[in-house]
């Protein structure tokens, strides 16, 4: 638990979350969500939860992004808001 490292990663996570819900292109939003998951994984390994961190990196940032890309490629890429 190093406070400056913690605050830096938290700020990056906030920026990624706001960008992921405000981008109009859905593929870009999904990519930013993958970056959000990796920052979250870094935050957890900084807190000492290594098992949760590598599960997040493999399951949520890997399989989740793949599922999102599959869904976006089957449907429309543009979003109105």
């Amino acid at each position, binding site marked *: 638990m190093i406070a400056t490292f913690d605050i830096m990663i938290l700020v990056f996570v906030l920026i990624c979350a706001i960008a992921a819900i405000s981008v109009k292109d859905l593929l870009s939003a999904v990519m930013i969500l993958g970056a959000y998951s990796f920052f979250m994984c870094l935050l957890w390994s900084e807190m000492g939860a290594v098992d949760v961190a590598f599960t*997040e990196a493999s399951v949520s940032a890997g399989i989740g992004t793949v599922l999102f890309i599959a869904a976006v490629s089957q449907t429309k890429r543009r979003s109105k808001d």
Partner: protein
Amino acid sequence: MFDLIISKYNYWIYIILMMIGFYAMIGKKNLVKKIIGMNIFQTAIILFFISTASKKGGTLPIIMHGHGAHAVKAASYINPLPHVLMLTAIVVMVSTLGVALAIVIQIYRRYNTLEENEILRLNK
């Protein structure tokens, strides 16, 4: 006041993250955007639970020099129980994500759009 901010700032940032996800769930019209908001919401809650496990002065929950015979003190390792519960929660999160995306694909096949207001207008 400064002590309060130092000891509670991470809870406030988790609440802000959770509110971003909540706003995307109820305010956005696109269905994929709603699912992205759900993902952010669940991740913020998991982050909150992981942060209750941390102890000042504790190390990772893996016993050092494991197979020697010596006493283990509970205060020198962080709490492993929230980590276990949140491992389960992450896997359940990905399962709900898969089912939600399958439903979205089926909705798109039927209505040819992903915007919520157009689906409601077509369904009237």
